[in-house]
């Protein structure tokens, strides 16, 4: 009796162990050996809604011909996915294709998670603006991703309320400040906008417009210039407006913020090309009352904008079929059929320049039905996007931004000091990790 009992136990244990190994086997993509051609089954991690429908087009069309099948695995957006990719990469099990925001590319490359696809997707370069493409090369000869969507920044305002309070659309930041003050005088309970510390991308975009280059390399050293003169100018400008009470200091994306936009308590928003989507849900009652204009400039002769958001499609080093994956990434972001579907199904603003004024972008977004030339204007603005410079620990700079600027906005204190903190924390983190940093 005891003997059989023990044997049963052993058998169960073996069964459990076997189960575990089969599970593990399911997790890894087994190699097909051939990396250049032949049937390939690819996994794609993305957060873009409706991507499965776009990928269906590939699987039924060009993918079928080349016997390359792509499976979409829906993911959480932004930084959460970066963490997940890095964790999967540690286990050697990252998917073949991933969606990554531009500022996350250096982090991923630095972790050796992204493959150089210059051989297979290099010729796509001509389809994109230089400033956009440069973000995927990190200034090297390699190509680490194909741009998918971009977020050129623009100025959104309530056309009706601007008229009511006798305000003109600011073309420079000085005029912007004057407009805020004028509104405060005319309607003290209203604010032109708010300085929100809960989305670092906004501030990074504003700094980029001012000409900031936060991370650059010289030789084999990084140079971190988060508190350079251009960014100081931006920080002091917004800090000054918050301090004098000309604008609000509460965060965006809260129920209170939605209400402020919906009821006209806040009458403008510095945002990006994707704003119509956000406004549709945040301020549904004000549909058709908003208008879009270029971002105010630092001097009247300037013409540039920053970018807020935007992402790319990258191939990981764990992929067994890098060439096939790169082929798909290039198709997804340059083929007119794919771009049309992306615009229709996912509502993204394409990085490929020729797609910005065709197909779904011939008509303005429904929320901006009153502004017929919305996308023509957007494409013109997108062309003026200033180059950006991302580094390997953008995440650290971004979290420090949220805490330091959140505290400064709350106490209406010096934004310059918060900026110095951001610089110091970022450099300290890089040094701690062992990066060569030039002072």
């Amino acid at each position, binding site marked *: 009796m005891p003997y059989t009992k023990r044997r049963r136990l052993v058998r169960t244990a073996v069964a459990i162990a076997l189960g575990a190994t089969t599970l593990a086997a399911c997790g890894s993509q087994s190699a097909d050996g051939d990396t250049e051609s032949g049937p390939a089954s690819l996994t794609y991690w993305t957060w873009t809604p409706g991507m499965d429908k776009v990928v269906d087009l590939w699987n039924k069309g060009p993918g079928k011909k080349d016997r390359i099948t792509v499976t979409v695995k829906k993911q959480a957006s932004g930084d959460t996915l970066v*963490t997940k990719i890095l964790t999967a990469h540690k286990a050697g099990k990252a998917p073949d294709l991933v969606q990554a925001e531009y500022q996350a590319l250096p982090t991923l490359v630095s*972790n050796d998670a992204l493959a150089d696809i210059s051989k297979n997707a290099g010729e796509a370069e001509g389809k994109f603006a230089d400033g956009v493409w440069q973000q995927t090369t990190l200034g090297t000869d390699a190509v680490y991703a194909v741009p998918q969507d971009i977020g050129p920044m623009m100025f959104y305002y309530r056309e009706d309320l601007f008229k009511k309070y006798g305000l003109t659309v600011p073309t420079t930041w000085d005029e912007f400040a004057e407009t805020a003050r004028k509104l405060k005088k005319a309607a003290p309970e209203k604010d032109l906008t708010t300085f929100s510390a*809960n989305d670092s991308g906004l501030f990074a975009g504003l700094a980029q417009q001012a000409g900031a280059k936060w991370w650059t390399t010289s030789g084999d050293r990084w140079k971190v210039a988060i508190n350079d003169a251009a960014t100081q100018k931006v920080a002091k400008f917004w800090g000054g407006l918050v301090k004098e009470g000309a604008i609000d200091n509460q965060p965006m994306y809260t*129920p209170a913020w939605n209400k402020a936009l919906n009821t006209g308590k806040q009458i403008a928003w510095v945002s990006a090309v994707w704003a119509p989507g956000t406004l549709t849900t945040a301020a549904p009652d004000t549909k058709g009352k908003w208008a879009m204009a270029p971002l105010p400039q630092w001097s009247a002769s300037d013409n540039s904008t920053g970018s807020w958001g935007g992402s790319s499609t990258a191939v990981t*080093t764990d992929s067994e079929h890098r060439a096939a994956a790169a082929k798909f990434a290039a198709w997804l972001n340059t083929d007119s059929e794919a771009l049309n579907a992306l615009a229709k199904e996912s509502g993204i603003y394409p990085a490929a320049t020729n797609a910005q004024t065709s197909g779904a972008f011939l008509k303005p977004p429904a929320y901006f039905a009153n502004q017929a030339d919305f996308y023509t204007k957007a494409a013109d603005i997108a062309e003026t996007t200033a180059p950006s410079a991302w580094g390997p*620990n953008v995440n*650290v700079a971004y979290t420090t931004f949220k*805490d330091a600027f959140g*505290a400064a906005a709350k106490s209406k204190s010096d934004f310059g000091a918060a900026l110095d903190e951001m610089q110091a924390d970022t450099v300290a983190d890089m040094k701690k990790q062992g990066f060569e940093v030039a002072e």
Partner: protein
Amino acid sequence: MKSTARRRSYGVKGAPYAFLVPATVLFALFFALPIGYAVWLSFRKVQVSGLGLGSGARKEVWAGLENYTDALSDSELLHGTLRVLGYGCIVVPVMLGLALLFALMLDSEKVRLAPVTRLAIFLPYAIPGVVAALLWGFLYLPDVSPFYFVLDRLGMPQPDLLDGGPLFLALSNIAVWGGTGFNMIVIYTSLQAIPAEVYEAAKLDGATPLQIALRIKIPMVSPSLVLTFFFSIIATLQVFNEPTTLKPLTNSVSTTWSPLMKVHRDAFGEGDIHGAAAQAVIIAFATLLLSFGFLRAANRRQKQEAAR
């Protein structure tokens, strides 16, 4: 004959171990191993060379106690701990006081509709912490809260609950609202276990209901009070849901407001798994020390009282 006897005795001796195997295996796989891995991670770090781009630029090396000294000298972690202790000083007494009060009231003879009331007090515990925090968060935001609307109409002052000192009250309120019911049930259950003879004797001696509550009920449920206190301390030190959920609504809650939030930020926001592991080990150790220290102190007192 001889051989079967030996085999049987061997089998009987081995049986307890065989019974222990599943539990031990599960414990090792899903408890000891992950903790061991976290401790292992906490002694390592990532070393980057040069620009850190391309393959081979990043390797994991032995860090010794570096992550621990960094964590212990980190002022943010210390401030987070102090914030959480301040929060705990409000939550624990208020929550347990209310739980005891409600339990005693429900246990008194005069109460009506006891089952309904009990359920009503317990119900918030059934609501997930994140949902509760969101719900309260909306009520704290002046622009969307009905409370502020009423205060405004009455011409009363409208405090900013998401800032400074009131923020602690606002966070504590969520925890008290959600946790009182659970603690009340624990205390109430042990009140129900007190034999009726004890009350009868007390009544014959002329004790009033208040005296019964203070002199008989509370001392007799002190083991459950110790237990609920123990749970509350652990929950306080691990507070994460409420401040994380309120964070997007205000500038006053930083990403490092509580120690666990800092661990989460370092691991998943800044990608420093090793530093985060060291902090997690320190927090776990401090929690163990504090809660078991309390448990020992409570036990010692009980023993002293029993000896008297």
